[in-house]
């Protein structure tokens, strides 16, 4: 039985982390995430991170033990895609009440587990701990252990209450739960020399399906994906894979490295964003599988596929090059995406004026430098105000970032594209990068930008509206000068309301003398059978202009 704090320390001691290797023992103990600053913090909590990492498992019920905020405010907010069950999109929470806080929520949690099994019969339940029950001492490990025994199916505690740290730490703690309770608990029906695991791939917008056909073509089987479009049974037997690819570089490194340690599954960090990365990743998968006993001809087939797909993608991108000449991009995103997207954008002829490296590792930064040269403009941390100024001064033609800074860009009337988890387009593999380029082109050349950057007519300082108005009057006056007197009289006599039935003069009289304030009154007094809308407005104006006389008349 290990305590939560011991687990956290274990996570901080991650041996395969390059940064960790360079730290002193004391620094390592402090962990890899920045201390959170009250009043200046952004980003999710550990529970958020745990949920991100595990929720894409589709045939599992995700039960959040806590008050309504943790689940009620956050459910159904991610765009992972499932090819099977939709159970993962349903939301389950114990919605703890005051009485549970006083008397403890364990019984309620147990009952909730029974209810879910009775109604939805899931293959497993993940139970997430949150701050309030952690604080009052609800022992979810114990409840899950009893429930597993009584219900005859795995009930997995995910012990990552929000206040233990950042999202990143929460993802790692979720990984620990998988390592401890799930991975290696079942055996696959059969194995092949081409079985791999994907770790940290969440199938956002179904983007992994842009890559999967290539793996299918090569005969490579994804034994388990942690966790995009994942199934509980697949993860449980993921220990039989021959090799693993870690897709999102920081969040689940502990899973990859412990699986290497325990089951001898080698892994590499890779990405499917961008042409070059996609090719490298496919080659690396092939190389690792061959090393572990797959026939060497796999590499030849991989090279053929890579060459074919690269040629297709390059041909597609070529079309955009002239349109992107001289266009500048500001890239604000984390980690692995910075360098993999940089390469792809450069290939399309875009100039990168800055890329954020807030969440990037040293290795990520080295790669960026390699790609962009020594004058690489790496931004450690960009405040919204700095971002706003940069865009307002048109230092970039388009910004690519996550949803949170979206409105900073849009409000400066700068094209913007979402490349983080809430986005609705899939950008993976060769297909995906072409899609990204298409989207950038659509954003850059949308006709709205020119319209939005034009000032409103009244904001044009050079125009004097009074002068304009007088000029108009002058023109009119010149035309009708000889008959000026008659025209004025005509204007009064004519039904000035464009309503045939009312005479302006009579109406004015009615308003002033009798205090008529409503259309009905006036219609009655002037004996007009019908009054149109324009008249109503004019009368309203007139009434407003005659306050004293109407009041007097009324009295």
């Amino acid at each position: 039985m290990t305590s939560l704090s011991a687990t956290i320390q274990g996570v901080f001691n991650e041996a395969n982390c390059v940064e960790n290797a360079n730290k002193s023992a004391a620094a390592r103990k402090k962990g890899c995430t920045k201390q959170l600053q009250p009043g200046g913090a952004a980003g999710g909590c550990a529970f958020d991170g745990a949920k991100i990492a595990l929720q894409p498992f589709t045939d599992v019920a995700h039960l959040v033990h806590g008050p309504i905020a943790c689940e009620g405010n956050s459910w159904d907010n991610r765009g992972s895609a499932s090819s099977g069950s939709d159970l993962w999109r349903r939301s389950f929470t114990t919605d703890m009440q005051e009485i549970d806080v006083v008397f403890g929520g364990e019984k309620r949690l147990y009952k909730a587990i029974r209810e879910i099994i009775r109604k939805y019969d899931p293959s497993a339940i993940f139970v997430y701990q949150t701050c309030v029950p952690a604080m009052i001492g609800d022992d979810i490990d114990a409840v899950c252990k009893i429930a597993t025994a009584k219900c005859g199916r795995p009930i997995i505690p995910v012990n990552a209450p929000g206040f233990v740290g950042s999202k990143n730490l929460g993802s790692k703690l979720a990984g620990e739960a998988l390592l401890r309770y799930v991975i290696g608990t079942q055996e696959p029906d059969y194995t092949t020399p081409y079985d791999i695991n994907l770790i940290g791939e969440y199938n956002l917008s179904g983007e992994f399906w842009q890559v999967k056909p290539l793996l299918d073509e090569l005969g490579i089987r994804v034994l388990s994906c942690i966790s995009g479009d994942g199934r509980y049974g697949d993860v449980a037997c993921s220990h039989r894979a021959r090799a693993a690819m870690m897709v999102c570089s920081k969040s689940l490194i502990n899973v990859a490295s412990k699986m290497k340690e325990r089951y001898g599954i080698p892994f590499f960090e890779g990405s499917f964003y961008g042409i070059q990365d996609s090719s490298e990743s496919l080659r690396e998968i092939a190389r690792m599988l061959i090393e572990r006993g797959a026939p060497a001809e796999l590499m030849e087939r991989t090279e053929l596929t890579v060459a074919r797909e690269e040629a297709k993608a390059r041909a597609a991108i070529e079309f955009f090059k002239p349109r992107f000449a001289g266009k500048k991009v500001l890239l604000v995103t984390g980690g692995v995406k910075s360098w993999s997207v940089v390469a792809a954008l450069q290939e399309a002829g875009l100039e990168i004026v800055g890329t954020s490296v807030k969440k990037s590792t040293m290795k990520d930064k080295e790669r960026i430098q390699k790609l962009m040269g020594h004058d690489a403009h790496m931004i450690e941390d960009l405040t919204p105000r700095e971002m706003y100024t940069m865009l307002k001064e048109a230092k970039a033609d388009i910004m690519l970032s996550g949803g949170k800074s979206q409105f900073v860009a849009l409000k400066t009337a700068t094209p913007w594209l979402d490349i983080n988890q809430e986005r609705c387009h899939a950008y993976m593999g060769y297909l995906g990068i072409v899609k990204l380029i298409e989207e950038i082109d659509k954003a850059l050349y949308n006709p709205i930008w020119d319209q939005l950057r034009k000032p409103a007519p009244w904001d044009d300082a050079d125009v004097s509206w009074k002068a304009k108005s007088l000029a108009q009057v002058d023109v009119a006056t010149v035309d009708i000068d000889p008959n000026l007197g008659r025209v004025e009289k005509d204007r009064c006599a004519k039904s000035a309301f464009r309503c045939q039935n009312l005479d302006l003069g009579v109406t004015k009289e009615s308003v002033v003398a009798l205090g008529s304030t409503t259309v009905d009154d006036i219609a009655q007094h002037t004996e007009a059978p019908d009054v149109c809308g324009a008249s109503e407005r004019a009368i309203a104006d007139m009434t407003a202009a005659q306050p004293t006389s109407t009041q007097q008349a009324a009295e």
Partner: protein
Amino acid sequence: MAIVTSSNKACSSNPLKMSQPIGGSFAFLGLRGAMPLLHGSQGCTSFGLTLFVRHFKEAVPLQTTAMSEVATVLGGYENVEQAILNIYNRTKPEIIGINSTGVTETKGDDVEAFIRLIRQKHPQLEKLPLVYVSTPDFKDAFQDGWEKTVARVIEVLVDPVDAAAPRDLSRVNVLPGCHLTPGDLDELRTIFEDFGLRPSFLPDIAGSLDGHIPDEFTPTTIGGIGVDEIATMGQAAWTIAIGAQMRRAAEAMQARTGVPFRLFERLCGLVPSDVFIASVSEISGKPVPPKYRRERGQLADAMLDAHFHIGGRKLAIGAEPDLLFDISSMLYEMGAQLTAAVTTTASPVLERVRIGEVIIGDLEDLEELAKTRECDLLISHSHGRQAAARLNIPFYRAGFPMFDRLGAGHQLTVGYRGTRELIFDLANLIITDREDNRQPTPDTWRITDNGLHVVPPRPN
């Protein structure tokens, strides 16, 4: 008369309810230059923030005291102090609005005392308004957080006035419930102004979350009612409260300043709009402008055109009490049959909902009822989309959050014009559904041995 029952499940599934603290922050978002602050762990803020951003498609200021495990156990004084100082130094707010969360309430942090200590220690904060409201997650719902926060803002920020002093007859205070959108507030503003009144909206989310583009970057709210204007609300002749949830705030205003209030539980529908417009006319002493006479006629016409489609519909609705009461009553008055109603928290209006039973529960309850009672129109916030898809019935999004459609901030339901728009939207939804999904086939009316299926008429 409806009986109000609570679902007795241990597991809430597909929650309808949002938490109380973010309802409180939402109220602070309607104040100008405000920075709402949640006293809790980072996630409390980050989830709320994401929710607001997805709903309004706007940048939303919302901060956290970033409580760690250790800080939570030892008490959050330092975190509150640091958060206030950081916000004060970085964003120069006109007000910081603090709501507690479940985790700091479990510990029992005395934030009012913290604030007093912080003010003593940092004299530069002397003039900065700091309003604290206790809003634990494990009690009540979104609407309650809003209600408590508005009442507290009045208690703290409105200057007391001499009851004998003359009042400004052209000024009205408007206390809108959280079920009104920025679009609704703008509509109400126009109505008051057309009667020559100057309204002060508290909170005024139309000023901050209507989507307008500010001239320069502002890290706090970009509009809303100013602290200075709130201070003078005691000089108004009347307070207009909208939604039963605002009774507490209206009473607080009356207790503090003697300003009498009128409470309008509903603003959607012909009769409620008549009552409202007549009342505004009475308060202002001005006749109803022709514009509203025409709008009334347009609404009457819309009701005539739409009753063919809405009449007889079996409605399943999940919403917070005031929204539920308002929309379901309007549809009842259009001939719809209210068949399933689920809400989030207790309220005096619930027993007047035109149905036998209102359940305080979740969207799973609503889905099950809608299924067994064969409802053919579902209304709830965006989270109802999964249920509607499974039930294969038309789905209208109303309430917060509405994250999967655009224009949430401008959805209009108040007054003659708002009711007219809502009626057209719903009728069109029903027509579309009939065209797409309910076309008859030669088999639709095949003779069977069963008796003829009769939909029982609505009990009156």
